[in-house]
């Protein structure tokens, strides 16, 4: 449906699991309010009806992993006034960026019967490595409240209110008992950006770092603490090598931990 003057929204997928797009569908009640304010011109996860660009707002999920991706992202950028990346894949390369630390040709030979049909890049990279990005929404997956806040901010021509502080802030606000202090469970909360509502500590688990580094991440001090809690250097390296392995602070922390492993 088109209403004259309504902003056009496109939702685009690159290498990803679709979880972040599903967060938009999961908005249920609010989804009607969204469609009242914007025309959803292209959202293949939700509808096969597609309208051509240009778009006022493009939400981009997923990382760049193929030569074709490189062409598509350039095209989408050219067609979009505002480009927002959603999720760890689009923002930091995602879990698939672990390939960046390994030999992709070897994977191709081992996994596929006909490796010659597979056209892939050696790396998984975030969208901002290829085109300018107006706003990056973190998370694996993103948080629905933050997504609505970002959409509402761009529709209202204001800066989104998305805090860049640590997960601990929300953990304490919710009255959770700190898992690191009260049972020595390793937790990435102190170096991770808030956004999930301190979900894992609320279930007595340490934070896995889904939202990437907070704005002032002191990973060396946390790594030292994780070591004191009994983690071997290789385990410390692994906690940083997940969904946001390519985020600079986590990448450096993993590298630093790895070095200790081979003196």
């Amino acid at each position, binding site marked *: 449906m088109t209403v004259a003057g309504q902003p056009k929204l496109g939702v685009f997928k690159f290498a990803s699991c679709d979880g972040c797009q599903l967060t938009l569908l999961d908005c249920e009640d609010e989804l009607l309010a969204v469609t009242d304010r914007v025309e959803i011109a292209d959202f293949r996860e939700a509808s096969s009806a597609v309208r051509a660009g240009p778009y006022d707002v493009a939400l981009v999920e997923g990382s760049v992993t193929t030569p074709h991706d490189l062409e598509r992202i350039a095209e989408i950028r050219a067609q979009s006034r505002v480009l927002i990346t959603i999720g760890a894949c689009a923002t930091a390369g995602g879990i698939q960026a672990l390939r960046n630390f390994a030999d992709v040709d070897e994977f191709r030979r081992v996994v596929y019967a006909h490796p010659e049909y597979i056209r892939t890049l050696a790396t998984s990279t975030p969208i901002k490595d290829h085109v300018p990005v107006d706003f990056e929404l973190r998370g694996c997956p993103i948080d629905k409240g933050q997504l609505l806040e970002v959409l509402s901010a761009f529709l209202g021509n204001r800066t989104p209110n998305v805090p*860049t502080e640590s997960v*601990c802030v929300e953990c304490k606000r919710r009255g959770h008992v700190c898992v690191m202090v009260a049972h020595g469970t390793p937790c990435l909360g102190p170096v991770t950006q808030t956004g999930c509502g301190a979900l894992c500590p609320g279930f007595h688990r340490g934070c896995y770092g889904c939202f990437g580094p907070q704005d002032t991440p002191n990973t060396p001090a946390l790594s030292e603490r994780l070591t004191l809690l009994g983690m071997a250097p290789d385990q410390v390296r692994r906690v940083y090598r997940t969904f946001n392995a390519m985020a600079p602070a986590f990448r450096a922390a993993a590298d630093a931990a790895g070095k200790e492993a081979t003196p």
Partner: protein
Amino acid sequence: MTESAQVGGRYVLDRADFPAFLDGMRAAGYRVVGPTVRDRAIVYGEVRAVTDLPIGWTDRQEAGQYRLERRSDEALFGYNVGPHSWKKYLFPAHERLWTATTTDGSFEVRPEPDDATPLAFLGVRACELAAIRVQDRVFGLAGDPTYARRRRSVLRVAVECGQAGRTCFCVSMGTGPAVHDEVDLALTEVLEGDRHYFLLHVGSDRGARVLTDVPLRPASPVEEGAAADRVASAAASMGRSLTTTGIRDVLVNQPDHPRWAIVARRCLACTNCTMACPTCFCQSTEEVPDLSGEKVERWRRWDSCFNSQFSAVHGTSVRQSTQSRYRQWLTHKFGTWHDQFGESGCVGCGRCITWCPVGIDVTEEAAALREPARPTVPSASKGTTP
């Protein structure tokens, strides 16, 4: 035998009659909140029955470490302060202040309804009474109406500590473990052989009123002495100490002391110390509009001087480094708080030490800042023991 309790009186409440005491508070219209075991810690929550209290539990605390442990007895209050403080009730972590809606080109602002049941705080320690007094002054000077509204109806039932935790230093800060602050009721728990009772001091009419149907008898000098001994032994076993003489000047006059850089290398800028601190009052208010653009809510939430965005002016933080944030926290808490509010911002509860994930200890930092500044900064940070 029940006799009507007098303000200023000192009585004995037997452990067996504790349920009647809880009933008394409820009958007077209070919702009782107090210590309860949850998620391997003693936190504050709803107390419906005496079995909700941490019977027979205690805690072992160190810098960056807290462990819940069994006691050898069945004490109700045999622990020291945990991760929560009473500020979560008086100054909630998330709070909607008002809602505005547009109607025909104009708008209407609706404040939050005031319908909360009065709270009875059961088990307020001496340091926590002091912390409430500190926040009373802060929010009072600010003329904060929501704090005042909540605070006015609270019944404060103090419990004097019979033991000190490894991170406690209330003696240094002059706030405990004996209760000297104004209070509605104060209890001291005594376990002696097969006797288990509470020495009960009545501090106000409000306190006396909840005791109408509670079996009490006047305390004997021996019972008073037994209770005083407990508190004295807590005072003698403080886990930490801090020299307060001239502390304001030590902090305020040394912005370039090399210790700030050393502690900043360990500090995670995670905010746990400030969130756990019972006197920290920093907050942010934000407007939350809905997608229609027709409704907006104003929320207030706990914030912290350890967040870069907290000191953002025109979008840029004026305290970019963790070093400047740590210095702000310690200097304000122990130094400029005196200038601002005429007292210390620290009551010596030890929460910031225990709940710091890397175990940074304010007493250790304050002591190091008293040392003359050495010319060079050591090359690597070394964490304290876990």
